[in-house]
């Protein structure tokens, strides 16, 4: 039971700029052990004048508040128009069935609440309960679109007034869920409240053009127009690969020519292009491993062919289909046998799973297979083509399971088998782990959303459960004399861990670091000089 001031659904329509809840550090879920967690800072005064912080004092949207009744009315009308389209079998064919099931059959037993790391991490703030935003949406929909809601009103719960504030708070609420879908996993009816969060995001994006700029303008739009969400074009990629080759030589003494646009290769490897910028050692490690294992592989220099991300997976079906179509077409034109997705969780899910039914038959999975890198990496280890010395990785280690790869694709075992073979110490499993893992807190775009003060909310609230899990896993070895490694085979998870480690001071206090899986593998390669992972790195 929550100890916070009760929030009702009617409050969502409350006028004024006062937030529905004000977060305090001391009311959040307690963490084991001491951290350097700072106090939560209120929004800057200059922001408050212009932007809306009326949900919880946080926002990623630097969109000016409506200042006239006409502007507010436009917001409401756009929302209602989008809501109608969400339930239209043509306009929303990809998800309308799941949407209707989740809207119509939730019995509000709140079984999902205990599964949500945001709700738990916040200290059980009502507005973050998985059912809260769904219930607001349901009540608005009933009130405006169903005969029972129009007729029976509050008797059936159709009692939420739709005004500019309701619309705005629903937008914010849609971006307080990581869409990790742990709630759907435990629901006795199979209701997917995370999907409803995504449907709200989609309504705003597809009907009103409103989405976090990191996801739309700097995300999918930029990727489709330039080639990558990082802004890297083809020329930039070629420079980057030259740098990669230098990095490999510097770290290993090996000269490797990274294959580019090699027609008919067995494998087209597609990374999250953010890796080249933020963790260049990760794509370098892939190159080292693939070359050492004798894999006939290539990268692509075509626009979108070198960036496997697909932010559409988080908020927009049209953008999702556009990006997936181009990525798979590039592979098809290159004549490769299959696409393999590097360490990027949502790229896995978007390319290997969701895209399956938004692409025409020629690009179906049997026509152009799309696989995770993890089974291939495990095959490399099993093949014996590379010799590993686990003693090179002799430090306490844990493994974060990226939701998109594990809970949403069922790829659980290969990464564990690899760690067993390339690390000296037994894997310290997080509790819970595998398909029951908790999200890192950066899922569904949060890792890259840093406009206004949104990232403060993410670090304090949605990252919190992961920080607790990591501290619990290393509870007996917290002494900073012992470096510790959190393996996260996903770019967004790594970005989130990087920020969380800094925010909570986990590097300074406990020498907890993070990195990818391939980094560990290369670090353990016998015929390399070692030191691929720098346990004393100061650049975290």
């Amino acid at each position, binding site marked *: *039971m929550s100890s916070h001031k*009760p929030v009702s659904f009617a409050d969502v329509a409350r006028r004024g700029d006062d937030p529905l809840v004000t977060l305090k550090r001391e009311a959040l879920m307690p963490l084991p052990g001491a951290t350097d967690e700072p106090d939560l800072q209120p929004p800057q005064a200059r922001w408050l004048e212009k932007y809306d912080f009326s949900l919880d004092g946080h926002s990623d949207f630097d969109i000016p508040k409506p200042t006239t009744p006409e502007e507010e009315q436009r917001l409401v009308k756009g929302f209602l128009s*989008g809501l109608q389209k969400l339930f*239209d*079998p043509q*306009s929303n*064919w990809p*998800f309308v*069935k799941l949407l*209707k*099931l989740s809207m*119509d*059959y939730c019995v*509000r*037993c*709140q079984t999902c609440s*205990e599964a949500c790391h945001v709700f738990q991490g916040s200290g059980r703030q009502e507005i973050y309960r998985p059912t809260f935003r769904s*219930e607001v949406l349901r009540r608005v929909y009933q009130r405006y679109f169903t005969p029972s809601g129009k007729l*029976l009103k*509050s*008797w059936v719960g159709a009692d939420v007034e739709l005004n500019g504030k309701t619309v705005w708070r629903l937008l914010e609420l849609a971006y307080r869920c990581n869409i990790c*879908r742990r709630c759907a*996993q435990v*629901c*006795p*009816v*199979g*209701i*997917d409240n995370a999907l409803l969060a995504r449907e709200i995001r989609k309504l705003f*994006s597809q*009907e*009103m*053009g409103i989405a976090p700029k990191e996801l739309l303008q700097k995300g*999918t739009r930029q990727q489709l127009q330039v080639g990558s969400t990082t802004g890297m074009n083809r020329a930039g990629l070629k420079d980057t690969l030259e740098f990669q080759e230098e990095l490999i030589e510097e770290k290993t003494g090996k000269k490797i020519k990274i294959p580019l646009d090699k027609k008919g290769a067995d494998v087209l490897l597609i990374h999250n292009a953010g890796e080249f910028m933020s963790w260049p050692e990760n794509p370098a490690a892939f190159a080292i491993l693939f070359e050492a294992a004798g894999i006939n592989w290539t990268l692509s220099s075509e626009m979108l062919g070198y960036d496997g991300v697909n932010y559409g997976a988080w908020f927009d079906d*049209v*953008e999702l*289909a*556009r990006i997936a*179509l181009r990525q798979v077409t590039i592979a098809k034109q290159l004549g490769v046998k*299959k696409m393999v997705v590097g360490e990027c969780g949502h790229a896995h899910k978007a390319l290997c*799973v969701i895209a*399956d*039914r*938004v692409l*025409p*038959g020629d690009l*179906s*999975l*049997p026509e152009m*297979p799309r*696989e995770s890198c*993890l*089974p*291939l990496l495990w095959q490399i280890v099993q093949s014996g083509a590379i010799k590993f010395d686990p003693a090179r990785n002799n430090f306490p280690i844990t493994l974060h399971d990226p939701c998109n790869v*594990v*809970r*949403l694709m*069922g790829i659980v*075992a290969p990464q564990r088998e690899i760690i067993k073979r390339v690390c000296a110490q037994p894997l310290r499993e997080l509790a819970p782990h595998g*398909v029951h893992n908790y999200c890192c807190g950066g899922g569904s775009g949060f890792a890259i959303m840093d406009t206004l003060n949104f990232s403060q909310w993410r670090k304090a609230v949605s990252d919190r459960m992961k920080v607790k899990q990591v501290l619990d896993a290393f509870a007996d070895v917290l002494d900073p004399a012992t470096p510790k490694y959190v393996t996260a085979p996903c770019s967004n998870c790594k970005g989130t861990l990087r920020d969380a480690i800094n925010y909570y001071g986990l590097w300074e206090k406990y020498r907890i670091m993070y990195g990818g899986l391939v980094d560990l593998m290369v670090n353990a390669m016998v015929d390399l000089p070692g030191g691929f992972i720098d346990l004393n790195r100061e650049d975290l």
Partner: protein
Amino acid sequence: MIFDDFMVGFGWLAAALFVGVSAYRIVRLARLPLNVRWEVYPVPHEAKEKRHYGGSYMEEVDWAATPRAASPLPAYLEIATEVTTLKRVRDHNGYGMWPLSLAMHWGLYLYFGWLALLVAGNVVHGAALAYLTIAVGLAACILGAGGSLGLMVKRATSQDLRLYTTPLDYFNLLFLAAFFLAGLVSWLGDTSFAAHKAYVGSVLSFRLAHVPAAVATSFLLFELFMIYMPFTKLIHYFAKYFTFDRALWDDDFKAKGSAKDRKVAAQLGYKASWASPHIAPGQTWLQQAQSTALPEGRK
């Protein structure tokens, strides 16, 4: 006589409406477009060696070229287990709803079992069947009434649950409790359920028989509930087939030219009539996907 006549007709009407409206809603759901893949693991029809930890066929290399022999049986067993034990509520609900919800659900299952026994009692005679009918009928009404009333109290007294409980939700629970309690009251005047059996027999044979008031009230409430239920979310038991089997566990990828592929191809021809600047007006989903050359000012 007119009332008895009505009771026979109403029994059939309730059954017909229950089946008809339920079927209509099932067909409406089934005819909605094929959704994109959106599965959540563990998926019960995965290979046995992977199922227990939530693993999938995507853990293998070259899975798209490897034939799969997935049996639907484990998935149906999982749904049946959920329906009969509510294990997700037991394992994850933090509000102590499981025993009450389980009692209410088993009250309903047993009530239908009791009806079947009453039907059987009109065909076969024997002491064992008679005792079983009494035991099942009483258990159904006690569990059902206890569970429904308990859930009402639970929802009304928990601040967290109360927020999400509408007057209609209370009404639904009250309705359930009412016909279970009416069953108990009717049993007090008909401890062998002989009059209940006679009523069921009269409905089946279309032969009018006198129905005592308490028995008539009990069956009337139940039949009204049968008519009412398919219009509400109380029929979430069939929704589970769609949410679990057709969504959360739907891990089947399409092959070129397959029935699924043809369905998707047809759906890609639907109009994506969204109004955002980055979506071109009047285009189909496939055209949208193929085009980024948006009209001036719509980028």
